[in-house]
């Protein structure tokens, strides 16, 4: 991202969807939200490439959509409430999407949640993640 560093930049594994991200991701997010409606999903699923032509997103964003690269979509200005609509189109739930974004199996993720979720300890600062 461009611009000065932000006070929340040192939180690990997190994108804060601020005005800069919102600006970069605008057309990507508007594409995603269009999939909220079944009639649009039908058109998209029939021909993804030409549907995407209607949204002037960057080539990288477009490729990330086609690749369903969920983390890359966030990196490029997507917001989870928007990208989850693309996931829902593909039959992926919020929880399964979370498993994909964190790089574990759906069972592993579900099990982590059943045992109290991801602990806050060791997950507050990027410096705590450096030894991984």
């Amino acid at each position, binding site marked *: 991202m461009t611009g000065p560093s932000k006070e929340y930049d040192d939180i690990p594994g*997190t994108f804060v969807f601020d005005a800069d991200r919102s600006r970069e991701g605008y057309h990507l997010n508007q594409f995603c939200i269009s999939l909220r409606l079944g009639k649009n999903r039908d058109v998209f699923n029939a021909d993804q490439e030409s549907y995407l032509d209607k949204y002037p997103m960057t080539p990288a964003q477009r490729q990330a959509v086609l690749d369903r690269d969920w983390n890359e979509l966030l990196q490029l200005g997507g917001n989870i409430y*928007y990208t*989850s609509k693309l996931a829902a189109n593909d039959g992926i739930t919020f929880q399964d999407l*979370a498993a994909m*974004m964190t790089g574990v199996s759906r069972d592993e993720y579900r099990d982590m949640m059943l045992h109290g*979720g991801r602990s*806050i300890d060791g997950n507050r600062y990027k410096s705590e993640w450096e030894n991984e």
Partner: protein
Amino acid sequence: MARVTAGVGCSHVPAIGVAMDTGITEQPYWQPVFEGFKKSREWMKEQKPDVVFLVYNDHCTAFDASCIPTFALGCAAEFKPADEGWGPRPVPVVKNHQKLASHIAQSVILDEFDLTIMNEMEVDHGLTVPMSVMFGQHGVDDEWPTLVIPLAVNVVQYPAPTGNRCYQLGKAIRRAIDSYPEDLNVVVFGTGGMSHQLQYKRAGLINADWDQRFLDLMTEDPKAASQIQHLEYLRETGSEGIEMVMWLVMRGALDEDVTEVHRHYHVPASNTAVGHIILENQT
């Protein structure tokens, strides 16, 4: 006169709605989530509010990225449940108390809170899930047992309004309701939270100790809760935990001193910590 008698804090996880709509609330995964709302439903039946003032957020459903109001007050006659990508929830249309809604709009704007007024709006799980857990299952052809005034708060694009701003707005809403001449029992809902992160590599974050302290502050020291900074919400409760600022609108609308009549906390519902509290005004 209209009076605010109580406040309800409540998570609004979409999967809770799905569990109710598909009839799996007795399954072992969901049973402890719903167990904690049994008392709430009984309380609600005795409370019989005429109007619920419901603070929630839209999850990129009715509002897309083209227009992002910080505070949007629902002034339409009714609000249909929105299709969020898997069809609208099979719950009743939400009916407004339009006259009270317009009175609140006029009053708080003159009180220097510059609201957006929504005369057309659909509502998503952020509003309908708290209705379902507090009032029980109601079908499409049924009616909710109360009128509802929705207040949608932006918590999706950073920054959400500060906790303090939400708390002060709650106080202004209270002044507006107090000055409305019709005899009405109003209960205020603050929804969302508690700790959760839905995105990227820290998804699944839960901070139960922090959540419990927040619930304590709701009862005992709302002023302190109103001073929690955004950075603390983001770091300690996950990127989506910042939804908890909406509870402060509810708390601002209550008396300084309240009685906690019920509390419920459970992990997990999908990716989220479920928190719930009922606070009654003493006067």
